């Protein structure tokens, strides 16, 4: 018998197998709005008050943020000790894009095509970003039975009616054009022989509008964008972090202080417009969760913007993806794409029960997994963790032999690395820290409300998804709002005259910290998580 798991798990698998035929004959019931609310309140980590702290300084003073984010907001700048002469300009551009992921790259391409002199700075390499790791797909209402209005309803409702309507409108209305743009750059979407896009459901979608490129959707998009950025000759300054925005005496942003991650040397970039496209915060490990995010996801842009006076929106709303890998330990926290459920796998507890519909919204499904585990219906995993099953063998029964390798090859490969054949046995999952629903507040055109020439795009922006994001709306968001920021920045810079450049806001923020009696002993932004293990002889 094929037994890639320890004995207790194999025992539970017998129950999963015993109920499979019956489970496949009926679809689990969708929860009512009240049932969802109750589940979220009881089990979603956003409702765990112990994991939040009050923000003591700055535009969102008095509101709450995850403890780890609050600590970074309450820390001072590197430039309080490292003095940088900002009168020595190393780079002088029209548009400075901070971040080399999907949003930053789309932005740079559009700004370049609009005639702007644009430059990307990025902490790691271009493409080392959550975009690269997005697996399942990208939404767009381009089928006959669908419309941008239907997409709006799904997005707005899935985000608990908290999103900014004008942002949702842009997201859904520009979605088909985003897909077309990507396709014309050469992104290979899954298509039928006649060119029709293969589309599926995601959690919370009312129409099948998830476009994909197998389960390498984000990678396919990101590597194409990266290729195009290089083709266009757009300068990309890699291994270089922006550690502070520079402002001028007119209250505009005027560039950024850059840090070479390898040499520790500083440089100064002057710019007429700046786009923060620094992505997410998974590596902050809010609530102690493992994460599906890339190595550099440390909320840097939020800190930069906040210190320069830009407020945050929904900084206390975090997305835990319901299906993170929880066994084996080597892939703990790795994303198991929602597409696994889109193509048929159910969520099943240790007793073999399909306890919830597999395509509820992410916050609801994550809460469901936590409930099952907390109430004793989870599977015990060595090291004290628990998880529930994602019944992957169903996919091959539903779609025929070979469906898994064809539709979700990355997942198949990730598990086969550890001898687990998901065609034959289910896989174990538990929620993983996946996405920051909030971020820097922007207006309908992508600009911050307080600094006229500062834009934010991608995961660093808040308000597009309310307090819960749907699958496939983030890849969409980085393309739509990345492109938008590029076009808007390229139009804006022509009317910007930079005044006297200064770092007064950094000094002022430090003063505010001192007055509030805050001394975390840290500097921010964080830049990299502290994973190195030191001092083990102590």
């Amino acid at each position: 018998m094929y037994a890639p798991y320890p004995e207790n798990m194999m025992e539970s698998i017998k129950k999963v197998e015993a109920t499979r035929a019956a489970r496949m004959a009926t679809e689990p019931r969708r929860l009512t709005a009240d049932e969802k609310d109750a589940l979220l309140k009881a089990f979603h980590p956003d409702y765990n008050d112990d994991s939040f702290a009050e923000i003591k300084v700055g535009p969102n003073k008095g509101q709450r943020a995850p403890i780890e984010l609050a600590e970074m907001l309450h820390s001072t700048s590197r430039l309080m000790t490292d003095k940088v002469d900002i009168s020595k300009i190393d780079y002088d551009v029209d548009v400075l894009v901070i971040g080399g992921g999907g949003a930053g790259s789309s932005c740079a391409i559009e700004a370049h095509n609009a005639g702007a002199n644009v430059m990307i700075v990025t902490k790691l390499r271009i493409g080392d970003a959550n975009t690269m790791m997005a697996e399942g797909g990208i939404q767009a209402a381009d089928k006959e039975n669908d419309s941008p209005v239907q997409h709006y309803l799904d997005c707005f409702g899935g985000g608990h009616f908290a999103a900014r309507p004008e942002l949702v409108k842009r997201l859904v209305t520009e979605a088909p054009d985003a897909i077309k743009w990507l396709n014309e750059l050469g992104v290979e979407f899954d298509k039928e022989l006649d060119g029709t896009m293969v589309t599926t459901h995601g959690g919370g979608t009312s129409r099948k509008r998830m476009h994909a490129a197998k389960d390498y959707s984000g990678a396919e998009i990101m590597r194409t964008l990266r290729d195009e950025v290089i083709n266009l000759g757009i300068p990309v300054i890699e291994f270089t972090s922006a550690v502070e925005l520079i402002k001028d005496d007119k209250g505009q942003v005027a560039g950024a202080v850059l840090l070479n991650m390898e040499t520790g040397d500083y440089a100064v970039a002057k710019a007429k417009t700046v786009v923060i496209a620094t992505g997410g915060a998974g590596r902050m490990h809010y609530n102690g969760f493992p994460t599906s995010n890339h190595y550099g996801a440390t909320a840097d842009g939020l800190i930069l913007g906040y210190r320069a006076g830009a407020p945050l929106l929904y900084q206390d709303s975090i997305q835990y993806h319901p299906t993170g890998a929880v066994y084996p330990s080597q892939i703990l926290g790795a994303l198991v794409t929602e597409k696994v459920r889109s193509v048929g796998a159910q969520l099943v507890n240790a007793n073999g029960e399909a306890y919830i519909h597999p395509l509820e919204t992410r916050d609801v499904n994550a809460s469901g997994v936590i409930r099952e585990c907390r109430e004793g219906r989870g599977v015990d995993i060595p090291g004290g963790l628990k998880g529930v099953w994602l019944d992957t063998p169903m996919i091959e029964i539903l779609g025929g032999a070979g469906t898994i390798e064809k539709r979700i090859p990355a997942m198949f490969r990730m598990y086969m690395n550890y001898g687990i054949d998901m065609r034959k046995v289910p896989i174990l999952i538990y929620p993983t820290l996946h996405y920051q629903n909030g971020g820097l507040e922007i207006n309908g055109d992508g600009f911050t409300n307080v600094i006229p020439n500062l834009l934010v795009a991608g995961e660093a922006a808040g308000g597009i998804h309310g307090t819960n994001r749907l699958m496939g709306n983030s890849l969409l968001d980085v393309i739509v709002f990345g492109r938008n920021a590029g076009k808007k920045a390229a139009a804006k810079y022509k009317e910007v005259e930079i005044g006297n450049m200064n770092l007064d806001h950094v000094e002022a923020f430090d003063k505010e910290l001192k007055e509030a009696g805050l001394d975390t002993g840290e500097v921010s932004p964080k830049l990299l998580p502290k994973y190195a293990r030191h001092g083990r002889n102590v």
Partner: protein
Amino acid sequence: MEEMVNVYFYGKKYSVPAELTIQTAMEYAGYTLKRGCGCRHGFCGACTTIYRIKGKNELKTCLACQTKVEEGMYITQIPYFPTDKRTYEVNDLQPGQKVMMELYPEIYSCIGCNACTKACTQSLSVMQYIAYAQRGDLQKCAEESFDCIMCGCCSVRCPAGISHPMVGILARRLTGKYIAPEAKHLTKRVEEINEGKFDEAMADMMNKPIDEVKELYNTREIEK
């Protein structure tokens, strides 16, 4: 007591827990990674690594984030490799054999050693997709190279100096743009949006009282 193994980072010996990946073992040993670490989940190709097990002849390539440590591993990372990407204006290209001849002529110097395929961290048939590129079969090249994460292990091992990942992405972009059939429903929808077909319904939706929107959401029909 957890099981430990001895590994050698750049020739220096460290004792690390056996369940770690090469990447987490380096961090256990005290390294703060800057280069050679990206997505940490096998999608970005940043952590290209080469190793040999003490006493064995074979030189192996892998991703540090996807590979468990083993006793006696001699490990070095290749955080950057000078693969040679040619630049082009994608709108000016024709999808045929000529484009490969012009942009990546060195593919015709392939000596058929298959070292690229053996080195592939994604278990792709790299030499095969290069062969498709030589023949101008861009669609097959695209298909065969699709799961490439561009870690560059193939290029590291190639005696002909081929930049395989760059050949693959060129084939994929040309296939996606020119060869795959047009999604007519997409073209149509973009036109409809540009013509303002949904503007009124959208404005209507946005102007509805919130309770009405909630009711619409909670009772919306979900496509089977």
